[in-house]
C-alpha cells in the first residue's frame, strides 16, 4: 500500500509544491510526507534553490540606443584620424609661419621657375634669394625679396593668414631692378586700397635717398610730381605705406592716390654726395614685370569636404545599431 502511495505522491509533488492541488489532495500529500522519508527527501530536493543568475533588469529604452565601447572607440579614433588628415591638407596650403624662416621658405618655394625658365622673366632654380623684410597690414603679409641674378629681380610676396596662424601665398611680383643697391618701390592697388612698398637692398653706404614720384589722384586727370627724401638707417629694410599715410606725406590728406610711379631715384652717401651712378647697372632694363598667382582655395576646400564626408560615413558605420561583429 505504501509503495503505491509513493508513486502517486511523487507525481503530485510538482503540482503540490506550486500550491495548485485541491485542498483535500494537499492535506493528503502533506500527511504522507510527514511519515515518508523518501518522499520527503524528494520534496526537499525539488524545493532547493538553485543559484542561477537571473536576467538583470534592463531599462527597455536602453535596447535601442546601446552602442558598445568598442564601437565608440572605433568611431572616435577614425574621426580623430580624419580631422588630422583635414588639418594636414589645410596646413599644406597655409604653410608658412610669420617668421624669418617662414618668409625665406615661402620665397624659395614659390619664386623659382619650376620648368622651362624664361631667360629674363623667370627666376631660375637655385638662384640665391634674400628676404629684405616683411610687413603685415590688415591681415595681409607682404614679404620683400631680392634675387641675386642678372636682372636683380626684386618683388613682393603677398600672403594671407589661415586659421592655423600660418600663411598661404596668394601672389608674387617679379621686377627687374637696374641697380646693385638702393630702394626698389612697388605699388599695389585695387578697388579697396592703395599701398606703396619701399624695400631697401644693400644700403650700407647709402645714408639718404630722394625719390621723385608721379602720382595720379582719384578724381583728377593730371598727375602731380612729389619729391620725398628718406634717411636710411638700415642696409635692408621694407616699408609699406597705405593711402592715408601716403596722402599725408604728400600733403594731400583725405585724398586717395590712384596710381604712383617712381620717376627718379637719387642716392646719397654720408657726406651728401650723389652716388646713384655707382649703383646703376646699365645691363638691366626696367622693361618688364610679371606676377605669379596661386590658384584659388577650392582644391583645399573640396579635399577637406571629401575627408569630412568620409569621416561621417566611417563614424556612422561604427555607431550603427546593432553592430555586426
Amino acid at each position, binding site marked *: 500500500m505504501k509503495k503505491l502511495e509513493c508513486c502517486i505522491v511523487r507525481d503530485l*509533488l*510538482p*503540482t503540490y*509544491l*506550486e500550491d495548485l492541488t485541491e485542498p483535500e489532495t494537499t492535506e493528503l500529500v502533506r500527511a504522507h510526507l510527514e511519515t515518508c522519508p523518501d518522499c520527503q527527501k*524528494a520534496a526537499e*530536493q*525539488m*524545493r*532547493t*534553490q*538553485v*543559484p*542561477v*543568475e*537571473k*536576467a*538583470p533588469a*534592463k531599462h*527597455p529604452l*536602453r*535596447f*535601442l540606443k*546601446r552602442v*558598445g565601447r568598442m564601437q565608440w572607440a572605433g568611431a572616435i579614433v577614425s574621426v580623430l584620424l580624419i580631422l588630422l588628415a583635414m588639418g594636414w591638407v589645410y596646413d599644406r596650403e597655409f604653410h608658412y609661419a610669420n617668421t624669418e624662416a617662414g618668409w625665406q621658405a615661402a620665397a624659395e618655394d614659390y619664386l623659382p621657375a619650376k620648368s622651362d625658365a624664361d631667360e629674363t622673366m623667370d627666376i631660375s632654380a637655385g638662384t640665391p634669394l634674400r628676404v629684405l623684410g616683411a610687413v603685415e597690414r590688415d591681415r595681409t603679409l607682404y614679404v620683400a625679396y631680392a634675387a641675386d641674378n642678372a636682372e636683380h629681380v626684386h618683388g613682393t610676396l603677398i600672403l594671407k593668414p589661415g586659421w592655423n596662424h600660418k600663411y598661404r601665398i596668394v601672389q608674387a611680383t617679379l621686377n627687374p631692378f637696374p641697380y646693385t643697391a638702393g630702394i626698389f618701390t612697388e605699388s599695389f592697388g585695387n578697388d579697396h586700397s592703395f599701398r606703396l612698398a619701399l624695400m631697401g637692398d644693400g644700403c650700407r653706404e647709402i645714408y639718404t635717398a630722394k625719390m621723385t614720384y608721379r602720382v595720379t589722384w582719384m578724381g583728377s586727370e593730371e598727375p602731380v610730381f612729389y619729391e620725398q627724401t628718406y634717411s636710411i638707417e638700415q642696409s635692408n629694410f621694407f616699408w609699406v605705406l597705405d593711402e592715408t599715410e601716403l596722402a599725408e606725406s604728400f600733403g594731400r590728406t583725405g585724398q586717395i592716390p590712384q596710381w604712383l610711379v617712381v620717376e627718379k631715384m637719387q642716392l646719397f652717401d654720408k657726406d651728401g654726395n650723389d652716388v646713384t651712378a655707382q649703383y646703376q647697372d646699365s645691363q638691366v632694363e626696367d622693361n618688364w614685370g610679371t606676377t605669379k598667382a596661386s590658384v584659388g582655395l577650392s582644391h583645399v576646400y573640396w579635399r577637406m569636404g571629401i575627408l569630412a564626408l568620409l569621416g561621417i560615413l566611417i563614424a556612422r558605420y561604427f555607431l550603427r*545599431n*546593432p*553592430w555586426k561583429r
Partner: protein
Amino acid sequence: MAQREENLYVQYAEQVYRYLFSLCREADTAEDLTQETFCQALKNLRTYRGDSTPQVWLCGIAKRLWYKELERRSRTTDTADLSQTPAPDNPAQEVEERSQRMALYQAMQKLDAETREVLYLRLSGEFSFREIGEILGKSEVWARVRFYRGKERLVTVLGGNSV
C-alpha cells in the same frame, strides 16, 4: 521604426532578452542578440504565418542567432567559457563562487537538453510554466514536471549539498 514594428519591440523585447539570457547567461550578449533578433524579425515579418505566438516566433529566431554565435565562438576559442559574471571584490569569496558555478555547470550538463532548458528558462528567464511550455511547444504541466524533476536530479548529482 514604423508603428507596428515598434509595438512588437516594446511588447516582446524584454521577454526575448530574458530568453536569450537564459540561454547564454551573459547580459551583454543577450542585449546584442536581442537587437539582432528584432532586426531579423522585422526583415522577415512577411514569413511569420501566425501559427505560433509572436513570442515563440521571436524566441525561435533568437535561439538560432545564439547557436550561430556559439558556432562562431567555437571557431575562435578552444575552451567553453563558463559564466562571465564580473569578479567580486573579495578574492576568497570569488574562488568559492567560481568553484560553485563550475560544479553547477557540470551538473547541469548531466541533465538532458530539454530539462536543462526548462531549468534555465525558469530560473534565469523567470518565465512562467505556461510560457515555457509555449516556447518549447509543450504543455504547461509538462514544463512544471520537467522543472521539478530536473531540480531533484540536479541536487542528487551535486551530491546532496544544499546550495
